[in-house]
């Protein structure tokens, strides 16, 4: 599949970087790399290789260093993500409240392991260390929406709502 990547958005992001984040020669400070990648990912939904090469040329930060950073942090993606992201909490409170089972069920329903995206591009499944809503354990977050005190049958119903036949947008 050949897709062309529009460099317009990344150029806009690069142009908006504040002076205080730049070196005297006008190049971007390497310390600003992570917020920069976060902004790019917010815009593109992931970090396309083409865009990264462009950033490396403009900023002078070696591509190897950019890749090093991206592969270290869990929240950077180099592949397009699903339309909906399902985050299943695997924190301690959720574990005590059967979180493992919820995670297994999601995996089973979607037919993918954690970190993967369904073939139709609808769902990406992730597990996270704690969503900070332990009082609702076990918790799952779909996009910005929290679902708490879950049982296996409830999570099945909720995921169905997000499917093409369901009533969620």
């Amino acid at each position, binding site marked *: 599949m050949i897709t062309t990547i529009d460099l317009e958005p990344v150029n806009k992001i690069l142009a908006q970087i504040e002076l205080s984040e730049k070196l005297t020669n006008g190049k971007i400070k390497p310390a600003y790399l992570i917020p920069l*990648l976060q902004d790019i990912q917010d815009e593109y939904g992931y970090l396309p290789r083409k865009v990264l090469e462009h950033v490396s040329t403009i900023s002078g930060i070696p591509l190897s260093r950019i890749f090093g950073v991206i592969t*270290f942090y869990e*929240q950077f993606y180099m592949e397009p993500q699903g339309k909906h992201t399902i985050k299943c909490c695997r924190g301690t409170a959720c574990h*005590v409240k059967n979180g493992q089972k919820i995670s297994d069920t999601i995996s089973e329903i979607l037919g993918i392991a954690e970190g993967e995206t369904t073939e139709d591009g609808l769902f990406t499944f992730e597990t996270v260390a704690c969503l*900070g*809503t*332990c009082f*609702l*354990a076990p918790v799952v977050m779909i996009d910005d929406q929290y679902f*708490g005190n879950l049982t296996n049958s409830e999570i099945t119903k909720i995921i169905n709502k997000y499917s093409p036949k369901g009533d969620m947008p």
Partner: protein
Amino acid sequence: MTLSELKSLREKIEISKKLIKQRIYICTTGCRASGALELVAGFNEYIEKNNLAGILEIVESGCHGKCSQAPLIRLEPSGYYYGKVKPEDVSEIVEKTILGNEKIERFYTVTSQEGEKGFFGHQKKDILLNCGIIDPKKIDDAIGVGAYMQAAAALESMSPLQVIENVLESGLKGRGGAGFPTGLKWKFCHNAPGDEKYLICNADEGDPGAFMDRALLEGSPHQIIEGMIIAAYAIGASRGFIYVRAEYPIAVEHITLAVKQAEEYGLLGDNILGSGFNFRITIRKGAGAFVCGEETALIASLEGKRGMPRSRPPFPANSGYMGKPTNINNVETLANIPLIIEKTGKTYSETGTKDSKGTKIFALAGDVKNTGLVEVPMGISLREIIYDIGEGIPDGRNFKAAQMGGPSGGCVPGEYLDLPIDYESLKEVGAIMGSGGLIVMDDRSCMVDMAHYFLEFIQKESCGKCVPCRVGTRHMKDILARICGGKGEKGDIEKLEELAVTVKSSSLCALGQTAPNPVLTTLKYFRNEYEAHIFDKKCPAGNCRDLLTYEILEENCTGCGVCKKNCPVSAISGEKKEIHSINPNTCTECGKCFEVCKFQAVRVS
């Protein structure tokens, strides 16, 4: 703004607040997950429709603490907390309680005005005070309850050394995990040579099961900024960072907004309150790495690198961000600072025990009736937190252990319920205060599984830089997985103990150095459970899947067929209306039949 302008602004806000007598404080932070915003919309719509604008005001506040009742609201002046409120309850609440002064028992859970007992009675809300009484999105609300007054006082009439002296005298220890005396750390940084210094607020809160930093960032962000201004003044920093966990979108939103508002008021920036002191704060979001909560890893991350810890010394106080002297403090630590300046260090130190001063916020979660955030004076017993504040274990089950301190901590068994909670006593029993996560477990939790869970967590989060942590925890995890899977062997326990000692003593950072703690404490207090797994191939808690057998109880089975229909491997047979049975050779112990049976006819053993 100058100090006198700040003071007159506060007075003005206080007077204008008095004009409205009735308020409903709706937690829109933690409770947002339970529909709090819909509730706000519902109340506001009702107010508009019924022309109640001058009589009743809705405040979008921070966390009230009793999160198990979410969405939770407080009504003033009655002080009643109503829980599990839905948008359709709005008119009833306004008509009966606000206009009619009548208490609705159905929603009522607790009051802020009760005596010496109950949920709030055992607490001492010093640090969490502002969460729940102000709208954290409005700087005027915060100023109205005194925000920035202590920073102003410190800048005007105290020298940096006097500030440090007060913090030293207060006895405050870091709330981020290690419990290092805060004043001492400030002193090191203050004394470090160089005039470019940095202050970092560690808001990475990675410890699973802890959410107090989240609540403070969301519910009282100006308190943290004020603490930072005072800290920066004391150590001589003109630039600060808040490194906040990206999994907390509301916290990121509120703290970002708060910094912006403080800048607009001249409370951050150049010549703060006319004192000549300059200080700016930059907010950075984490990118999903637990180890970045460790201070040297966090600094590496701020520098735009892979977030890997390095060995210390040099300590950040001498060589931190960009090699410059840097002081790094946890959110809750910084939130304590304004109180210390207000009360003086000496008075602050009157709360708590001999070596642990002040209050501590705990995130109460797991198998306990009242889950939520509680703030108690140091030295209170575990029993008071779990049974008096938490109201005990639900479903009539028994207490088994409390997990304290997250992946670096340990499981505290029932025999230590009366242990006073402070840094020292917890260390003695093998747990740590950590960040204050307190997860209660009942008799259905398997301790070997818990140990495995934490090692799996550590394994996933280990940055891989040093061998003991990367490889050692891997072996420990594998052994634990084997034990839980019914393939434990004689000698496994000894191997675990040996590995634990090695990993503890030779890992580079505290992630590895403390990783064996969950294994060591469970081995210490629940060794018989390990032995049951290894030698009897049984999980006494009925938790480890591979060690369970499922059978159908003839006397309860109605032959409804639901279990048969739901069994993913067709291990269940039986005709409709006749007693069913499970074929143990096909059964994968997934537990589905147990879950779906409405007649308690499936027995797990």
